[in-house]
């Protein structure tokens, strides 16, 4: 029944050729994981966990052919390190440099034999004078304007040129304002095809014509994202796809999660080619491609310059408020601007502090200035030359040893020194000695005693300061001396010693150190010193009139009247040493004792610096020196003793001593002890009163003040 079966089948197509199973070798299915990438030599590429990018390593080896072993940095004095400039080619292997690599080495023509039509920009070297060399610009082809050159660069073909090479005009570029030849203006240009499409779109950027820029993200859905190059070759779209980076040979690219969708990728029309052609241009065509647009550009609104009112002066008037009246400008004076011709040479000389030049009236101003300047220069020049700064005859860093050094022409030493040296008279004439201060550190190193102060080693005479301590102590001394004669011994106080010492100090002091209390007996202090004065009881009547300020300080009370104090002041200022004391009010003895103690406790011997209201010499009775015997006598209502007025002795220096002291001293010397004692008793009572009164007065006075 074979025939029956064969007749029923309809055969379609061409049957396959019969093949022998044994003849053709079977190809095993190669799985993905078995597919490995090898290079031209069969060596494995993409080692390890390779996921893309460049393959690392030198065929999975490290440290061969010197390329991957890190070189040790070595630099020594004998062999300095060489700085090697590494290029990308160092890290590439043959595959990269080969035809299909990333940096294929191609044989190219050199610059001189380069036949590319591209106009290459002339690079001008940035030497000391950057930019286009001026010489290049001097002579140029004036008919080849920039516009002409640009269009020619684009590819414009000049139609109907009347300008031939012979008519090329050459001139300097400075002549810009020349008229264009009518032939140039009227000639038409043919736009190359490549710009037709680009120029159809209204251009609102400053890129070049037809510029598209980098691709806006390879994540857009369009196929063009993956295109490496899109080329239109004879209306056939030929795309060259692929990716040069990122993914390995066997892996699919991951979805790009960073890509941004572009709405433009959805903007496409379905139209036929015929429809494309129907886009017609209406309106007037300019340059074969430009037409007048329907949208007019916004006219730039020009704002005119505001009109300035006439009253505007341009000066800022400060006003407190908007409604305040404008300050009158005329009242303010502008700073006086002295013009150059207003000043005379003499006034200028005065201002500068120099001597006025002569003939100032006749000669012109400039001449006046010049001699001044010249004088100045002459004054200044000599010390400049001879001191520190000398004009360099030869530079410091002259490296050529064969150049002989120029002799310096400076002259040293003074005229006298040079003469002396010539005459060989060295010694006094040639030697100068100055003070020089070694640094303390230097002294240390040289084991030499250091100077006390780095700054103050100048030989200064020590400034004599007023020894106020001694001044005050001298007051105390006075008081002590007032009661010198016939006083009780007071073993508690070692007063005599102090008094003695004070007296020695006094003798040294100058007579100028007077103050209100009469210390006029400085000159007499020496004779007094020799006298053995018995112990002085300080509690005894302290002469308040002498130490007014002292008591003021101690008894700062207002019991005393000002008037009385003032009268005292007046009396003090006069010559007389005698007290003028108004009758003191009676006070109790207890108070007296208190006061005594207070005085003692107050440490009279402590120095109290008194501010002198009057001058130092105010209390010196100079009248005495001139006219002896003219001492005005004042009534002494409560004079303790009747002291006969004594004629001032011419031999005595200084103002007159208080009578009492003189008397007492004399009495002592004469050893009229009995009389003295008697007198003292009398004094005591009266003086006590006197003292009390004075204190009260002082107190009163203070009260007034308050």
């Amino acid at each position, binding site marked *: 029944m074979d025939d029956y079966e064969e007749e029923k089948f309809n055969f379609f197509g061409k049957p396959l050729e019969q093949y022998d199973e044994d003849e053709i070798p079977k190809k095993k299915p190669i799985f993905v994981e078995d597919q490995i990438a090898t290079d031209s030599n069969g060596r494995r590429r993409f080692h390890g966990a390779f996921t893309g990018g460049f393959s690392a390593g030198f065929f999975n080896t490290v440290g061969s052919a010197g390329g991957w072993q890190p070189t040790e940095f070595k630099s020594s004095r004998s062999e300095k390190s060489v700085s090697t400039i590494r290029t990308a080619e160092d890290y590439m292997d043959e595959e990269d440099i080969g035809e299909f690599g990333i940096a294929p080495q191609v044989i190219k023509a050199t610059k001189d034999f380069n036949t590319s039509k591209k106009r290459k920009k002339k690079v001008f070297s940035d030497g000391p004078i950057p930019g286009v060399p001026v010489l290049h610009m001097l002579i140029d082809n004036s008919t080849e304007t920039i516009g002409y050159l640009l269009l020619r660069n684009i590819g414009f073909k000049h139609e109907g040129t009347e300008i031939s090479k012979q008519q090329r005009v050459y001139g300097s570029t400075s002549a810009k304002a020349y008229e264009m030849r009518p032939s140039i203006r009227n000639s038409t240009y043919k736009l190359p095809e490549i710009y037709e499409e680009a120029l159809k779109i209204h251009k609102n950027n400053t890129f070049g014509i037809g510029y598209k820029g980098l691709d806006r993200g390879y994540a857009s859905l369009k196929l063009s994202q993956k295109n490496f190059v899109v080329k239109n070759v004879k209306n056939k779209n030929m795309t060259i796809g692929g990716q040069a980076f990122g993914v390995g040979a066997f892996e699919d690219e991951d979805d790009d999660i960073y890509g941004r969708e572009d709405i433009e990728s959805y903007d496409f029309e379905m139209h036929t080619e015929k429809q494309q052609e129907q886009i017609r241009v209406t309106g007037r065509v300019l340059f074969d491609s430009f037409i007048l647009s329907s949208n007019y550009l916004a006219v730039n609104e020009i704002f005119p310059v505001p009109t300035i009112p006439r009253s505007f002066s341009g000066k800022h008037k400060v006003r407190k408020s908007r409604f305040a009246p404008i300050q009158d400008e005329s009242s303010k004076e502008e700073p006086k601007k002295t013009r150059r011709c207003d000043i005379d040479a003499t006034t200028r000389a005065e201002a500068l502090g120099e001597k006025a030049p002569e003939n100032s009236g006749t000669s012109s101003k400039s001449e006046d200035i010049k001699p001044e300047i010249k004088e100045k220069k002459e004054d200044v020049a000599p010390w400049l030359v*001879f*001191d*520190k700064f000398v004009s360099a005859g030869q530079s*410091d860093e002259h490296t050529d040893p064969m150049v002989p*050094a120029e*002799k*310096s022409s*400076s002259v*040293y*030493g*003074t005229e006298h*020194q*040079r003469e*002396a*040296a*010539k005459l*060989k008279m*060295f*010694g*006094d004439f*040639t*030697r*100068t*000695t*100055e*003070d*020089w*201060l*070694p*640094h303390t*550190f*230097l*002294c240390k*190193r*040289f*084991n*030499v*005693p250091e*100077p006390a102060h780095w700054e103050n*080693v100048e030989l200064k005479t020590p400034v004599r300061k007023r020894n106020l301590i001694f001044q005050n102590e001298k007051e105390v001394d006075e008081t002590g001396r007032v009661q010198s004669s016939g006083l009780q011994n007071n073993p508690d106080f070692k007063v005599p010693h102090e008094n003695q010492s004070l007296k020695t100090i006094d003798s040294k002091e100058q007579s100028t150190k007077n103050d209100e209390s009469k210390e006029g007996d400085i000159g007499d202090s020496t004779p007094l010193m020799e006298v053995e004065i018995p112990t002085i009881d300080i509690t005894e009547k302290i002469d308040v009139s002498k130490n007014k300020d002292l008591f003021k300080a101690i008894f700062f009370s207002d019991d005393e009247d000002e008037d009385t104090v003032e009268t005292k002041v007046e009396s003090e200022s006069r010559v007389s040493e005698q007290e003028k004391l108004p009758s003191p009010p009676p006070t109790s003895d207890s108070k007296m004792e208190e006061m005594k103690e207070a005085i003692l406790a107050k440490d009279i011997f402590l120095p109290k610096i008194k501010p002198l209201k009057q001058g130092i010499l105010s209390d010196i009775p100079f009248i005495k020196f001139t006219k002896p015997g003219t001492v005005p006598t004042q009534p002494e209502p409560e004079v303790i003793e009747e002291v006969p007025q004594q004629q001032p002795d011419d031999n005595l220096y200084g103002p007159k001593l208080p009578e009492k002291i003189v008397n007492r001293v004399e009495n002592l010397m004469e050893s009229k002890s009995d009389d003295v004692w008697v007198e003292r008793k009398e004094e005591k009572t009266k003086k006590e009163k006197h003292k009390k009164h004075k204190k009260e007065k002082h107190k009163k006075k203070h009260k007034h003040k308050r």
Partner: protein
Amino acid sequence: MDLQCINTIDCKQGAVRAVRFNVDGSYCLTCGSDKKIKLWNPYRGLMLKIYGGHGNEVLDAAGSNDNSQIISGSADKSVITWDVSTGAPLRRLRGHASGITCVKYNEESSVGISGSLDNTVMIWDLKSRRQEPVQILNQAKDCINSIQVTDHEILTGSVDCSIRRYDIRNRKLHSDFIGAPIMSVNYTSDGQCIVVGSSDDTVRLIDKNTGEMLGEYLGHKTEDLNVESALLASDNHILSGSVTGELWCWDLVSGKVVKRFEHTIKKVLNSVSTHPVKDVVLTASVNTIKLWEVSEIKEDS
């Protein structure tokens, strides 16, 4: 008096700018224009060490009192202290504005004193790490050519024709105008006189305290070059180099020329150094140094 040349050493340093004995006279230092300092045993002619580190010619060097350090000054404006045994630079002191012409230690070698072409003398503290000078002496009006240091004085000779003696103890500066640019200054052994070599072809003996000239020694030619003069330890003779390559020797008292000794004919003999104790002299000329010793004058029969 006669000087015998015992040894001649070719230093191979270019030009020898200065030759100096160390503190006890057993070694010597040569400063070369090849920027190196060499330490020699001059008696045997052996080079012991080279000290390199300066940026320009080395113009002067000095050894410390314990022979452990060397101080050197160079035209590269820096002063370097070296460790003698290792040869390493210890300190580099920069402060001068111009090349340094002379360096000296003080007696205890705790201070280094350098004089320079910038008219100043700078005193450096070598014990501390201070980078600035302790004191700067800027009284001179021209380059400093020579310095000497005693226990309490610093003596400088300058091109401004004056020698200046800084008395640290008395805090005084005595400057003596000599009349010609000064090339070298030396103290006599008793410290009472100063030997001043100047560029007017004269060496003078100046009394330290009065400034008077006690002696004048002429005959040699120095022209403009920096030629050193020295004093033999015995204080009887004065030595000086010269442009003609001769070592001139005068009797100190009489001032007469005793003898002239040749180092290198027609080449300047620029540096002279005397042994601190013995009558031994080192001279340097061009690229060689010569060691001279006093020998008794052979009496002619």
